[in-house]
């Protein structure tokens, strides 16, 4: 009966016996305590969260926004490429035809009557942003989907996704 070996890569551990100073531990303890005390005087890395926010990277992918063009018209034409690109299948939309009274609201003849993103499914990969041919959807780097107690609160409709009208004018 030999010794069963799982691999042939075996390393025999060499235990080096501790010398006197190592055995009484006190020098090591003093060394450790100088390290901890040095941290007492170091700069603190805390951000005081609600008042002070951590600066986000420029390429951070946060909450989506549906952009308007220079005249304040919605850019989205409900082509569905974002929904197709979405690996988490978080985006749904319903297209509608623009009537003559809505010329100032939508840029092209077709628009998204309903545009919903389920933030519980979304993985914030940014593929929708890449897929969009009209530069209509972007992921903001300064906003995130807020926490909530209700699942239904996480389905973001156009009311929460479209860029506010006045903001783009000014």
């Amino acid at each position, binding site marked *: 009966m030999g010794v069963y070996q799982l691999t042939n890569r075996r390393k025999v551990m060499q235990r080096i016996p501790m010398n006197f100073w190592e055995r009484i531990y006190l020098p090591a303890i003093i060394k*450790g*305590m100088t390290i*901890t*005390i040095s*941290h*007492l005087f170091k*700069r603190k890395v*805390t951000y*005081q969260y609600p008042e002070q926010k951590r600066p986000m990277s420029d390429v951070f992918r946060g909450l989506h926004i549906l952009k308007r063009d220079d005249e304040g018209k919605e850019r989205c034409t409900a082509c569905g490429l974002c929904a197709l690109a979405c690996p988490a299948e978080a985006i749904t939309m319903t297209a509608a035809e623009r009537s003559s009274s809505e010329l100032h609201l939508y840029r092209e003849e077709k628009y998204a009557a309903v545009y919903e993103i389920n933030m519980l499914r979304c993985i914030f990969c940014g593929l929708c942003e890449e897929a969009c041919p009209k530069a209509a959807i972007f992921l903001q780097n300064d906003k995130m989907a807020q926490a909530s107690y209700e699942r239904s609160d996480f389905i973001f409709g156009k009311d929460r996704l479209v860029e506010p009208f006045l903001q783009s004018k000014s």
Partner: protein
Amino acid sequence: MSSIILFKLIFILAIFGVSLFIAMYATYMERKVAAFLQDRIGPNRAGPFGLLQPLADGGKLFFKEEFIPLKSDRWLFLMGPGFFMVTALMTSAVIPFGPDFMYNNEMVSLQATDLNVGLLYIFGVVSLGVYGVLVGGWASNNKFSLLGAIRAASQNISYELAMGLSIIALVMMTSSLSLREIVNQQQGGNWNVLYQPLGFLIFLICAFAETNRAPFDLPECETELVGGYHTEYSSMKLGFFLFAEYINMFISSAILATLYFGGYHFPFVSQMEPGMLKVILSVIVLFGKIFFFIFFFMWVRWTLPRFRYDQLMNLGWKVLIPLAVINILLTGGVILFKSM
């Protein structure tokens, strides 16, 4: 005579209040020290710099659900934390908090009572302290609590021996058991730690074990025993256990300062003319030393990992007790050599 009794009463109440107050702010200090050693800020929302945090914590504990396990021994379960708290508070009776001074032609002493066996009294009360843990842990009728309680008991017994032996060397040197006498012998920077460095080291390590502080916090070791002896406790009963630990820490620091670091004496004290200023300065110096040791307790807690139980017992029985005996022999030898 009656004025002395009145003063003693006020003084005892003051010590009681000060112990509680310091224990309360030791919890705040612990959190702040922990945070600073870990590059954080710590509690800073309740009041300026988070100074009201202990009050908020206390209030929270009072309003928590009071839970008593059905199969516990109800009476002992309630008694455990109370006992622990009372013994923690009793120790401060013999600690001299400042020098004697004259007030209205009467000698006033800043010490609840100057027992001539003060040191023995402290040891008696400290070893009683473990009963609170033991009773509480046993009455919980919970395996983890029981294990924690057993650990606390055996740990205290093992370390009390080494602690007592390290103190014997000190007593041989000072030939007194009265704490005030010991303090007064250390006047003028003549601190005992200079003559008893080994004894101080043993006493310090044992103090960590006696107060159940890291690295010897095995009775309440979270990683193995959930919460140790206070697993089943909630509300203010848990608060008492936690609070008493901080009082113990305060008392231990006071004893360390008194026995080895000159108590309320500070260097060049003899050049100052006696008066109220000197008394106040002495008290401040004592509290400075106490705060240093409380900080030291915390500093060690956030540096060293917890011992394993067999390591703890090895250290106690095979290292500290022989060392303490050697210390006694050395001290005795030096005393004999000097007297010849």
